[in-house]
């Protein structure tokens, strides 16, 4: 399988990773190598096999619908890059 620079650019955009031309070129060649490793998988016949996500095949536990978290806003915001008046600051989104 061969990836193009445009493929890599699209994935970088989806993953929200800024990349310059040189990085895209190097990512393209390394990802191509990895996808060739992965390609081995495609030849396997998996008709009728159920996908496996957990070894024990458990169903999701449910809990009581009660409040368990306490308000720790000040503690959590003490490690934030930028806060003001109890709010997280980001660049303006809506004009």
């Amino acid at each position: 399988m061969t990836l193009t620079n445009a493929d890599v650019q699209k994935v970088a955009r989806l993953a929200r990773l800024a990349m310059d031309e040189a990085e895209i070129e190097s990512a393209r060649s390394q990802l191509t190598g990895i996808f060739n490793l992965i390609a081995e998988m495609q030849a396997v016949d998996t008709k009728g096999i159920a996908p496996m996500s957990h070894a024990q095949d458990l169903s999701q536990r449910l809990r009581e619908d009660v409040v368990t978290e306490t308000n720790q806003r000040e503690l959590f915001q003490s490690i934030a890059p930028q806060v003001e008046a109890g709010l997280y600051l980001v660049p303006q989104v809506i004009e």
Partner: protein
Amino acid sequence: MFNSSLYQLGGALRAKKISSVELTQLYLERITALNPELNAYITLNPEISLAQAREADARIASGNAAALTGIPVAQKDIFCAKGWRTTCGSKMLHNFISPYDAHVIAQFNQAGAVNLGKTNMDEFAMGSSNETSYFGPVKNPWDKARVPGGSSGGTAAAVAARLCAAATGTDTGGSIRQPAALCGISGLKPTYGVCSRYGMIAFASSLDQAGPMGRSAEDLALMMNVMAGFDERDSTSLQRDKEDYARNLSKPLHGLRIGLPKEFFAEGLGSDVALAIEAAIAEYKKLGATIVDISLPNSKLSVPVYYVLAPAEASSNLSRFDGVRYGYRAPEYTDLADMYEKSRAQGFGAEVKRRIMIGTYVLSHGYYDAYYLQAQKIRRLIAQDFTEAYKQCDVIMGPTSPSTAFKLGEKGDDPVQMYLSDIYTIAVNLAGLPGMSIPCGFGDNNMPVGLQIIGNYFDEARMLNVAHQYQLATDWHSRAPQVL
């Protein structure tokens, strides 16, 4: 003192032969002397460690000590510990002071253990050599030109160099067992779901599992008694009764059936590693075990399957790092999207970005069935191989890693070569089985070789028994590197 077992240390503390404060000081002094060369620890916090030691001494004085009370244990820097900088080996979290404790950390605190420091690791646990850490590579204490393995390389080096009594690791594709093998220590990855993932920074959630790393199987059993247990805050945590992992240690091995998968002894295995493994198997025969030849025909697919599933889950888990609420934010940006893209581009290292890219691609529109779903199906085939094998044997043995520790920089430019160093460990994570590595000799370059022991689901106590009996009959586990 630095070579004492956890049982011995606990006994000395309770007999007041040494205080926890004295013991903690001794370790902190040794870390100050040796860590600059080994780089096994990212963060030390003597003030917190010694405060915990004082509390432990008070608890011992009051007669309420538990097995690990007062014992200095190092924590992989993937576990959030309240008040401690928790970096996960990344620039993204270089300034993150955790506001809460991981379940595993809370369990150690409850047991009265002393948190000695946070150990170095591959960035976000992605790596097999500890070279992807933002805080620099860890050196193998047996040869400082070589890697300690990864991702729990800091923990493995710290245990091997006697910079802690024991420590924690996490294992997504071999990150406890491979560094344990490369540093000549013992490590156990429990059955998936036995130790809570709460507060353990997520890499690939369906594979990540915490476990102990130490100098002997006996030490691992004591660590497991603290680490294991149900936690409702982890949706995949298993509801099981508490068990004593040391209960079977002294059982004889007569009648034990050891399965040897032919795929683990095929092309690609270093001849020096093969020799050490064969000698270990011969020792087990002397201890009364019988050998069964088995096959795990789909295990050869485990590397490709892993490099679809793990990056897919990672790309989703790591989307939370956006520079908004915590962690790194780029100093300059034009708008919100630019802030995300620059913060992530500058905050993540090359290997993490590579895996996010793979994961994003395989999950993107039009590729999901061909990659992620196909990988999940083959995952079941790999797990079924083990189920079949356990009809004929009690444990499975083989090499942990195809070679001993390689040189720093040796595999730097080729991610695929690096990925293949986990070829014998990954299938175990995919199946959700418990696996461990114990030292069983040395290779051509005098670097340690690890024997991998794979158990059936929830068979940790038996695996620890199997490892302990070997460690009673041999002394590989008590060999120490000349680090000074």
